[in-house]
């Protein structure tokens, strides 16, 4: 049961995370205020990398 829930969580987090990066990445060009920079990319990718790492960590500690 816990494995099934973990797989569902992983699909949701990774799937939506990739969709966020894809949608925000595509919108970088018409950015109205301020230029896109490496820092902006970091802010976009970092939280989602953390979420994926959390899923992996959960799999590691799962009873």
């Amino acid at each position, binding site marked *: 049961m*816990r*494995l099934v*829930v*973990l797989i*569902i*969580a*992983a*699909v*949701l*987090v990774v*799937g*939506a*995370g990739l*969709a*966020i990066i894809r*949608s*925000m990445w595509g*919108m970088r060009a018409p*950015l*109205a*205020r*301020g230029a896109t920079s490496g*820092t*902006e990319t970091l*802010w*976009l990718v*970092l*939280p*989602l990398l*953390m*979420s994926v790492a*959390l*899923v992996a*960590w*959960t*799999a590691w*500690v*799962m*009873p």
Partner: protein
Amino acid sequence: MDRLGDAVSTAAADVATPGRGIVRDLITLTKPRIISLLLVTTVCAMFAAQQGVPSGWLILWTVIGGYLSAGGANTINQYVDRDIDAVMGRTERRPIVTGRISAGAALAFGVGLVIASVLVLGFLTTWLAAGLSLVGVLLYVGLYTLWLKRTTIHNIVIGGAAGAIPPLVGWAAVTGDLAFGAVLLFAIVFVWTPPHFWALALMLERDYDEAGVPMLPVVYGEQATRVQVLLWSVVMFGTTLLPYAAGAGVTYLVGAVVLGLPFLWMAGKLWRGDRDRPWAAITFHYSLAYLALLFVVVAVDAAA
């Protein structure tokens, strides 16, 4: 007229009892309503850390220290943002903006609260809890308020880390260290922040635009923001399932699903742009109740 009447009555009361007016303004600076939600996450994390009911005294000191810490951070935030607050309708009546409290006095009050919070948490709970609360203040004031808020659309995503610190403080107050469960609670608040704040930003888009704050709807528009609210809601829902996979009970799983599905449904209605109801406001208000109830479920599951 009612609002004008209230203002006149309040002003008259302040003239009659100036001390009470100052005290009320100082309390207003701390933003007590926002802090109440932070403290719910703090106390419920204490139950999870204890895997039962923590001592009443420990809860009391942690709540007092947490209030002082968050109140100090909120006060310093209003000191820094007093130029923005003056041009936003929602904040133009705050004590510093109206001059009821001078900027310098507010800054001193905020710093004093932060120092007091470190002492209370350090001496009466654990020094890790005190250190974490100080990190939360530094993240909120330094990372969010001074840097990200005025420079990037990702301001509330990264800045959300500050609001996710209280569960860590609660956990550390009980155990003196941090376990994986504490990290999960931090992550839940962290990923809850974008859909919560962007729903609010959709309601206040004009205010943020006039103040020059690059919130997502101001820079990319409403539809792009609605998409992000939905996607982050999915990330949030998935993240709330992780504690069960990591060992939490069925009570938690049922609570997370029962509370999370309506959140997804509202975010979906918002994304579709349904005009039948004000879905941004509904999603925002539900998100507040959602986080509080989810953490209550965490506490109940741990104590059961």
